[in-house]
């Protein structure tokens, strides 16, 4: 009899340090499931970023390289160029990718570096305790935006739509945005990740899956409330779906499920 569902081999069976309701754990699991399905466990390297997911190397059961805050795409570039037949996962939070590491992600994407970025957008700085992120929504409260993000008067700027920003670059081949706030979105996000990893292994170019992810602790909500807040506030601003798909072959286009 075949095991239909179990714990993925590429994820260690350990308790994580992530807060209740945090999206990182679900996203880790999706990555691990896809790696198992593609039989890439011993040919995978993750660059785990500065941020809550710095702990990713405790949970994934394969090699890791931990770089400086925001330099994750530069380090992934070095890793992937040296290990072109490996699956290289550049895992990043929104502070890491869209603030301190903006230059690194734009240029890695533009060069068409053949790794996959998993961009965890929780609209807040998790690790450091809830400061405003580049993706924090207008009006959303943060410790450094106590009255809510105020783009104009307080000069806090506007939330950045990273997929749309990167879509203009020639090196990007696949940019999708999923969410992990309910089962349907989780399943869809897994499909995006799988497509991106498969495209990476075919050497197609830069691939990224942005994942809208709850941070109940720093949003100061109960986990269930956070899932709802994400649905009502983040998804309208950050539309889900394949933002750019220039992968070879029409069969790779999103099945309208």
């Amino acid at each position: 009899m075949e095991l239909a569902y179990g714990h993925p081999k590429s994820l260690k069976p350990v308790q994580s340090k992530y807060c209740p309701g945090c999206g990182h754990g679900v996203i880790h699991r999706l990555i691990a499931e896809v790696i198992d399905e593609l039989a890439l466990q011993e040919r995978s390297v993750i660059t785990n970023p500065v941020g809550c997911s710095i702990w990713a190397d405790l949970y994934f059961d394969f090699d890791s390289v931990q770089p400086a805050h925001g330099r994750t795409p530069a380090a992934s570039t070095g890793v992937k160029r040296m290990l072109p037949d490996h699956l290289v996962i550049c895992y990043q939070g929104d502070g890491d990718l869209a603030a301190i590491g903006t230059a690194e992600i734009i240029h890695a994407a533009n060069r068409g570096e053949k790794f996959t970025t998993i961009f965890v957008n929780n609209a807040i700085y998790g690790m450091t305790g809830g400061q405003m992120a580049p993706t924090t929504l207008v009006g959303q409260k943060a410790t450094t935006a106590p009255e809510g993000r105020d783009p104009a008067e307080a000069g806090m700027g506007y939330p950045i739509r990273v997929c749309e920003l990167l879509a203009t670059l020639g090196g990007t081949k696949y940019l999708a945005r999923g969410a992990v706030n309910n089962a349907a979105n989780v399943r869809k996000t897994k499909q995006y990740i799988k497509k991106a990893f498969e495209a990476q292994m075919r050497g197609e170019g830069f691939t990224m899956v942005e994942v809208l992810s709850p941070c109940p602790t720093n949003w100061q909500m109960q986990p269930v409330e956070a899932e709802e807040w994400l649905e009502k506030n983040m998804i309208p601003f950050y539309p889900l779906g394949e933002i750019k798909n220039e992968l070879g072959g029409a069969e790779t286009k999103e099945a309208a499920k």
Partner: protein
Amino acid sequence: MPDDKRLMKGNEAIGEAAIRAGCRAYFGYPITPQNELTAYMAKHMLARKRTFIQAESEVSAINMVYGAAATGARSMTSSSSPGISLKQEGISYACGADLPMVIVNVARSGPGLGGISPSQGDYFQSTRGGGHGDYYHLVLAPKSVQEAADLTYEAFDLADRWRMPVMILADGLIGQMMEGVVLPPERDLASLPRKGWAAGHQADTHRPNNHVTSINLVPAELEALNRKRFARYDEIKSSELRFEEVNVEKADLVFVAYGTSARVCLGAMEAAKRAGLELGLFRPISLWPFPHARLAELAAKGKRFLSVEMSMGQMVEDVRLAVEGKAPVDFYGRCGGVVPTEEEVLAEARRLLGK
């Protein structure tokens, strides 16, 4: 068969030596006076189907090196002073993660944007662990194009042996001038050391996971890691000291100088000899580790020292630490990109000696 002697610019000789040492990946960003090195690597690394990337910044370049080095590949970056400042973050991480790599600084004058003329103003930054945290790394200072090539070649071996970044600290003059050079033999990439700690190729051996990282939030564990690293530093201090001595036994005054300023001192010594004056040169080649013990020996023999630098006085502090007040140590320096002349250095020596 050894190579023929050829005429090369310092920057290009460094690049060729790195390629021959088995450098598989180079990451750089344009800055004068090291641009020929980046261009050389673009041409010759790409021609060999090795990795060359003109990065978006020095910050990115050093972190690309970090990633490549984490897979065990010999990799390098080069820059000049302002760019090296930007690389300090990555160098600190590389030291914390014990990653071998080669970093070339073809130094120029500062602070700030400063100028593009040669300088030795980066001595402190290079030898004191220029980024955050408790660390050091090897620093080698060539005085000629030949030595720049030889030290670069060796730097890759030293980096692998000690699992740490090795910095070549040259200056704009060494990088820009042309001299005859005999290049070291080309390494077979397959002959390079295997690195059991590196990320990747897990499928070959089914070994446990490798994690390249500098983080440890448990104070006692991090302290233990740092102490282990410092024990390695002690081994390096006893086995990797490099220096050159010229006429120190006979000399009434010994210049202490490295790189370009050592060449100036050699010229001053020739002129002194014609005037019947015996001057010597103590030339540190490894700036970290610094050859303190040998300078202390010379001090015990009653020598006096004149540190000659293209800075406002940086290495002179190491000279003073070495002699521990047991001998007079004076300083003569020019800065801002000014290279001291043999005449002014000689005049200073004569003034000190009263001759």
